[in-house]
């Protein structure tokens, strides 16, 4: 694209509404020192120029056909970013305009969000479905402040998000008033503790390198958010004619694998073990991770405890023994942890009651083997890394990338005798899995006809209508809905479950579900969210975004009318302090008035029904909502529910 010079006005004059011509303004400029014809005493500073004394403006051409932001869009497009979620902000107005006009608002498409936390939350959910980052644009200072909790969630959840923030670096170019409030010396400092990398490029070539570098860093395990702070002037200023700009080639780093010796030792332990257990938390980064974990478990006939950070292992696979976690840990002689976020909490109990106490759950002779990229990357300030775990073998590596070599090593070590042992072990687990499913079905009958409606009933009614479709559940199931879906439903595809917030920051679920639905849209999947009421109320504007962008998402409200986790905490304190136990609802419930989520959704253009209190009304309402979603629109069913 060519660049043309046009007459324009200085930024300050533009604000004053004085559109003076370039030539006229230029005539008023007097070179510094031109008026200093007399002698000065030693040490006396030179007199100020007339221009400096009077503050007469210097003309500056601002109009251009080729702003720097256009090149930034070229770079962003080269990275394959499909969407940028954002709430508009003047510090990135140049990029905003370039995306929608120069970039044609496609790859990336601008997704209008009502809150920066929602934009980052959407990107969080999108990434876990699509396996690559979504973009987010953030306004200077206040926008990043709004976004910070959601960024922290993504950081804890090891999710890449590609964030760009505007900031007017040069103080002399800032507009008086708000632009000063929205400018900052070190913009990224606010979130530096929980982004993997940030930069403030000083030029467009610098931006190009940093932009590609940021993507590469975000996508190298452990995957994490990254932040580029982009000077507003760099976005808006025209590109000089002879500037040599090119988009650097992106080459992703290969994920780190465990070293051969450690892999061989881990395989030896697993093959020799009588009672091995495999823990999988954020193990399956991609669909291939599920396939690999199935292979490892099957050749060993070893039970898998899926801790739910991702969809790691089919829920009804005979070796899925997630329901037997306590007994399996207690009886294990080898425990293999794959990207386990809290290994210590898995192999130890922690009781906070009359006294605070803990004790090991695992056999003291059990060998603990850990494979996690978390060992490659740790920061000091925020404490998401959990208690230190005394393991016997720690591989600082990506679990999914290490599984192929571990599988091969295990295969090499299996003898005929061991194979027969494994086969017998597998038969016992198959029966245990069948029993667990029957037990779950039996437990689901309790409060089956209750009003408020039980979470088991919600999950059973939903499953009854989606099980024959290509569905994707995009909300966390522990603790909010008692893990019913993973107990009752049959999960076998990577996109059917995406784990939770990571940092347990409330306000994640609604935007993440919508972001996941956005990613699922082009694949034609039916996206389902079981949406907590307290979470939705952090930023309910996400409903508007769903309607505006026609993102098909079925939201079934888990409306227990409170922030129930906190209610239980306050109840615990009230009980512990012996001052009465009837007032814990103060500050923890959402009643008086009860929120009508159907009306809330309808007001933003979303099909909605409810509040539903009769369990017999639930199935038909879900069916009607699915019909809407399958036409490409969002729908919400408000269900008044049991607490958990």
């Amino acid at each position: 694209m060519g660049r043309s010079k046009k007459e324009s006005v200085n930024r300050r004059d533009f604000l004053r509404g004085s559109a003076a011509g370039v030539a006229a303004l230029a005539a008023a400029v007097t070179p510094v020192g031109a008026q200093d014809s007399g002698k000065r005493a030693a040490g006396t500073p030179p007199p100020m120029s007339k221009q400096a004394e009077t503050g007469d403006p210097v003309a500056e051409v601002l109009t251009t056909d080729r702003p720097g932001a256009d090149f930034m869009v070229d770079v962003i497009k080269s990275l394959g970013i499909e969407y940028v979620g954002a709430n508009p902000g003047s510090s990135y107005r140049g990029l905003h305009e370039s995306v929608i006009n120069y970039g044609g608002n496609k790859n990336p498409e601008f997704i209008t969000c009502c809150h920066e936390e929602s934009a980052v939350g959407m990107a969080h959910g999108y990434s876990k479905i699509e396996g690559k980052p979504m973009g987010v644009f953030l306004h200077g200072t206040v926008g990043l402040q709004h976004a910070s909790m959601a960024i922290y969630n993504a950081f804890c959840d090891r999710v890449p998000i590609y964030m760009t923030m505007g900031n007017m670096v040069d103080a002399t170019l800032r507009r008086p008033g708000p632009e000063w409030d929205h400018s900052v010396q070190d913009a990224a400092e606010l979130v530096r503790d929980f982004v993997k990398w940030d930069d403030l490029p000083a030029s467009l070539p610098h931006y190009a390198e940093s932009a590609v570098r940021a993507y590469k860093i975000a996508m190298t395990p452990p995957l994490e958010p990254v932040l580029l702070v982009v000077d507003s002037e760099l976005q808006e200023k025209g590109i000089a004619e002879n500037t040599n700009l090119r988009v650097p080639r992106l080459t992703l780093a290969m994920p780190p694998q465990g070293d051969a010796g450690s892999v061989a030792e881990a395989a030896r332990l697993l093959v020799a073990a009588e009672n091995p257990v495999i823990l999988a938390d954020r193990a399956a980064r991609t669909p291939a991770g599920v396939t690999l974990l199935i292979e490892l478990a099957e050749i060993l006939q070893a039970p898998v405890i899926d801790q739910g950070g991702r969809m790691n292992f089919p829920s009804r696979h005979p070796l899925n023994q997630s329901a037997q976690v306590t007994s399996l840990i207690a009886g294990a002689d080898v425990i293999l942890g794959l990207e386990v976020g809290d290994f210590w909490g898995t192999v130890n109990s922690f009781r906070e009651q009359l006294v605070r106490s803990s004790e090991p759950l695992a056999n003291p002779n059990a060998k603990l083997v850990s494979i996690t990229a978390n060992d490659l990357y740790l920061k000091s300030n925020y404490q998401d890394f959990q208690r230190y775990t005394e393991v016997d073998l720690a591989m600082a590596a990506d679990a999914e990338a290490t599984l192929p070599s571990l599988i091969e090593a295990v295969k090499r070590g299996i003898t005929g005798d061991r194979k027969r042992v494994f086969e017998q072990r597998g038969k016992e687990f198959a029966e245990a899995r069948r029993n667990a499913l029957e037990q779950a079905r039996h437990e689901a009958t309790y409060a089956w006809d209750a009003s408020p409606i039980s979470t088991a009933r919600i999950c059973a009614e939903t499953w009854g209508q989606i099980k024959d479709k290509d569905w994707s559940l995009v909300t966390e199931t522990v603790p909010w809905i008692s893990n019913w879906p993973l107990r009752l439903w049959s999960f076998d595809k990577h996109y059917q479950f995406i784990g939770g917030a990571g940092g347990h920051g409330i306000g994640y679920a609604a935007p993440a579900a919508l972001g996941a639905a956005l990613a699922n849209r082009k694949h034609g999947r039916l996206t389902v969210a079981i949406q907590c009421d307290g979470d939705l109320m952090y930023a309910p504007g996400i409903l508007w975004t769903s309607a505006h962008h026609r993102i098909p998402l079925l939201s079934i409200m888990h409306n227990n009318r409170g922030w129930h986790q906190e209610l239980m905490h306050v109840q615990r304190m009230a009980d512990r302090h012996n001052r009465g136990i009837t007032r814990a609802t103060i500050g923890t419930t959402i009643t008086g008035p009860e929120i009508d989520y159907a009306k809330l959704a309808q007001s933003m253009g979303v099909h909605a029904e409810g509040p539903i209190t009769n369990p017999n009304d639930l199935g038909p309402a879900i069916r009607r909502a699915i019909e809407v979603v399958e036409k490409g629109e969002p729908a919400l069913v408000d269900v008044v529910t049991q607490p958990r």
Partner: protein
Amino acid sequence: MKKSGVFCSVLLTAVTAMAILVFCAEAGSQTSAANKKSETASGNVEKGKELYTSYGCYECHGRQAQGSRTSGPRLSPNPIPLSAFSTYVREPRGQMPPYTNKVVSDADLADLYAFLKSIPQPPSVKDIPLLQ
């Protein structure tokens, strides 16, 4: 912008506690019939239902005492014997906080127990097509 999922971290213990109480509930169903009259004689079902809500029992155990894998075990139907119930409330073994008689009297416990005893049996799995 906040906050917690502290109870997530106690899931294992909560499940353990659930197993204990469910076991007790099932065992109680076998032994409680003989003691049924004496165990419920002093309890008031309606008052127990009110206390179950006002004392916040429902928060962890559900409004029909159906329990949850992630917060607290099922208490009914077939609650454990009253004596075991009272002992557990005063000196719980899992994550449940202890309730002294300063905040829950013995009379309250009897009423709560009467309410738990009044909760009917659920439908059978075989009668619920959605659970097949």
